[in-house]
C-alpha cells in the first residue's frame, strides 16, 4: 500500500457559527430568484409596463357605456393583477421547482435536516411575496400616475386576491408535479396561461364579452378572480359563487399537487 508523500493531515476544523436555517434558506432562494431574473422581469415588470402603456393612452380614461360606465383603465386594473399571479404561478414557480427536482436538489435536501418541504415552502413564500409586491405596484402606480380607482372594499379585495393567489400557486405546484423537467413545465404553463388570461379579459374585457364567454369566464380561476376583484374595487356586492369557484380551484389543485408531487 502506498504511504508517505501525503501532505500533512488537516487539523480539526474550527467550529462554525450556527445560523437560523429557515431564514438563510429564504434569503438564498430569494437571491437566486432575483438572479434568475425571469420571475422579477415577467411577474413584476410586465404588468407594470402594460399599466404604463394603458395609462398613457387617452381613450383608456374615457368612461364607456359598454363597461357599465367604467373607463378601460379601471377595467384592466384587476386583469393586470391577475396577469402577475398567472406569470408567477404558471411560469416562474413550476419551472424553478421542476428544475430543482431534475437537478437532484430536492433529493439532496432530503438528506439534510432541512428537508425538501422547506425549500418548497421558501419558494411559495417568495412567489407570494412577489405577487404582493406586483399587486401593490399596479395599484400604487395606477392610482398615483393615472388616477385609477383603488378598491372600495379593501378587505374583500384582499380575500379575493388571496384565494386567487392560492389557486394559481397550487396550479403551479400541480404543473411542477406532473412535468418531468423545467422545459415541459414551461410548456404546460404557457399552454394554460393563454386560455386563462383570455377568460381573465386580457384581450377582450369581460364586460364586453359575449354572454356565453362571460359565463364561462366566471367558472375559470382568473375569470372568477377578475370579476370578483372588479366588484370589490367598484364596491358592488360580490358573487359568492365566484369566491367558491376560486376556493374550489385552490383546494382541487392543492390536493392534486400534494398527491402527485415527487421529490425525485
Amino acid at each position, binding site marked *: *500500500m*502506498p504511504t508517505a508523500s*501525503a*501532505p500533512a*493531515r*488537516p487539523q*480539526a*476544523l*474550527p*467550529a*462554525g*457559527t*450556527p*445560523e*437560523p*436555517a429557515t*431564514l*438563510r*434558506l429564504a434569503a*438564498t432562494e430569494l*437571491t*437566486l430568484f432575483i*438572479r*434568475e431574473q425571469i420571475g422579477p422581469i415577467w411577474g413584476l415588470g410586465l404588468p407594470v409596463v402594460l399599466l404604463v402603456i394603458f395609462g398613457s393612452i387617452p381613450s383608456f380614461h374615457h368612461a364607456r357605456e359598454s363597461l357599465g360606465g367604467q373607463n378601460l383603465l379601471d377595467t384592466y386594473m384587476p386583469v393586470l393583477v391577475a396577469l402577475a399571479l398567472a406569470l408567477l404561478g404558471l411560469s416562474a414557480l413550476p419551472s424553478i421547482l421542476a*428544475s*430543482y427536482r431534475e*437537478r*437532484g*436538489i430536492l*433529493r*439532496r435536501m*432530503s*438528506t*439534510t*435536516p*432541512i*428537508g425538501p418541504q422547506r425549500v418548497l415552502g421558501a419558494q411559495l413564500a417568495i412567489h407570494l411575496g412577489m405577487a404582493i409586491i406586483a399587486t401593490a405596484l399596479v395599484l400604487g402606480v395606477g392610482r398615483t400616475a393615472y388616477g385609477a380607482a383603488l378598491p372600495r372594499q379593501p378587505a374583500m379585495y384582499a380575500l379575493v386576491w388571496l384565494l386567487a393567489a392560492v389557486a394559481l400557486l397550487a396550479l403551479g405546484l400541480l404543473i411542477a408535479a406532473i412535468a418531468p423537467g423545467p422545459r415541459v413545465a414551461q410548456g404546460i404553463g404557457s399552454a394554460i396561461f393563454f386560455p386563462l388570461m383570455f377568460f381573465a379579459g386580457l384581450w377582450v374585457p369581460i364586460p364586453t364579452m359575449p354572454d356565453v364567454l362571460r359565463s364561462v369566464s366566471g367558472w375559470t380561476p382568473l375569470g372568477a378572480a377578475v370579476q370578483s376583484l372588479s366588484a370589490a374595487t367598484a364596491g358592488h356586492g360580490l358573487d359568492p359563487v365566484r369566491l367558491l369557484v376560486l376556493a374550489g380551484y385552490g383546494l382541487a389543485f392543492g390536493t392534486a399537487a400534494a398527491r402527485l408531487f415527487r421529490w425525485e
Partner: protein
Amino acid sequence: MTAVVEVRELRKSYGDTVAVRDVSLTVQRGEIFGIIGPNGAGKTTTVECIEGLRTPDRGQIRVLGLDPGRDHGELRQRMGVQLQDSQLPERLRVGEALRLFSSFYRAPVDWRALMELLGLTPKERTKFGKLSGGQRQRLSIALALVGNPEVVVLDELTTGLDPQARRDTWTLIEGVRDRGATIVLVTHFMEEAEWLCDRVAVIDSGRIVALDSPAALAAASDAPLRITFRPAAPLDDALLTALPEVTSLERRRGEVVVTGTGNVVTAVTSALASRGIVAGQLRVEQASLEDAFITLTAQR
C-alpha cells in the same frame, strides 16, 4: 468497538428488478468502509437505504442506533451525505452554498475553513454553473462535511477528479476519519478502496460476495504473480518455461513477462542466476484488490 452502521438482511426491489437481494454488514466507529461492485450491483441502492432516501422492502438498518426511516430528523443532523450526481442551482455561488448548508446543522464546522481546506476559496464567488467537474465534486464533498457529521456516506467520492485532486481528497477523508467520523464509501476505483478502506464489501447482483480488508481480499484471490524484466543477455525461453512454478512466458517490447504461482520469484531468479543472466528492471506485481475483484465478480 461500536457499530455505527448495521445492515441486516436488506432487500430492495424496483418493480420486478431486485436491486439488493440480501445485504448484511456492520461498520464500526472510526472505520472507512468501502462498498465496491460492478455497475448495477446494488451499491447505490444499499447506501440510499442507509441514508434514508429509500425504504427497504425487508431487513433492518440502524445508523448511530437510529432507524433511517423513522428517526430521519435526528439522523440527518449527524450524517453527512454525498450523492452520486446531484447538482445545485446554476446561479448559486460556492460560498453561498456552503453558508446555506452550514445553517442546516446544530453544530457546523466553519464553512470558510472547510472551503479553504478543499481549495475552493478562490472560487467562493463563482456560480455552480461555472465550476469544473472537479470543483463541483470538491464542493459536494465539502457540503457533506460542513455539518461536522459523525458518519459520512460518500457515493463516488473522486469521480471526475484528476489524480492529484484524488490523492488530496483521500488525505482529506483520512483526516475526517482521524477526527472520529465513520465513513462509508461507494467506489469503483480499486486503488481508492485499497488506499483508503479498512474493510471492503464486494457486492455483486445484490449480494455481498466478499467482505474483508483489501489486503486479505487480495491475498485470498489466487491471482498469479507477474514478473517482468529485461534480460541483459540472450535468454532461451525454455530455461524458464521448464520450471514447474511458471505458467506462461511472453515477450513485450524487449521485456520478458513471466507469470506463475507459488515460489515463482525464487525459481525464476535462481534459474537466471545459474546462467549468469542479469535481470534488469526487475518488477514483481502481486495480486491486487483489482484482481480479487475481477475473480470475485466473474464467478456467477
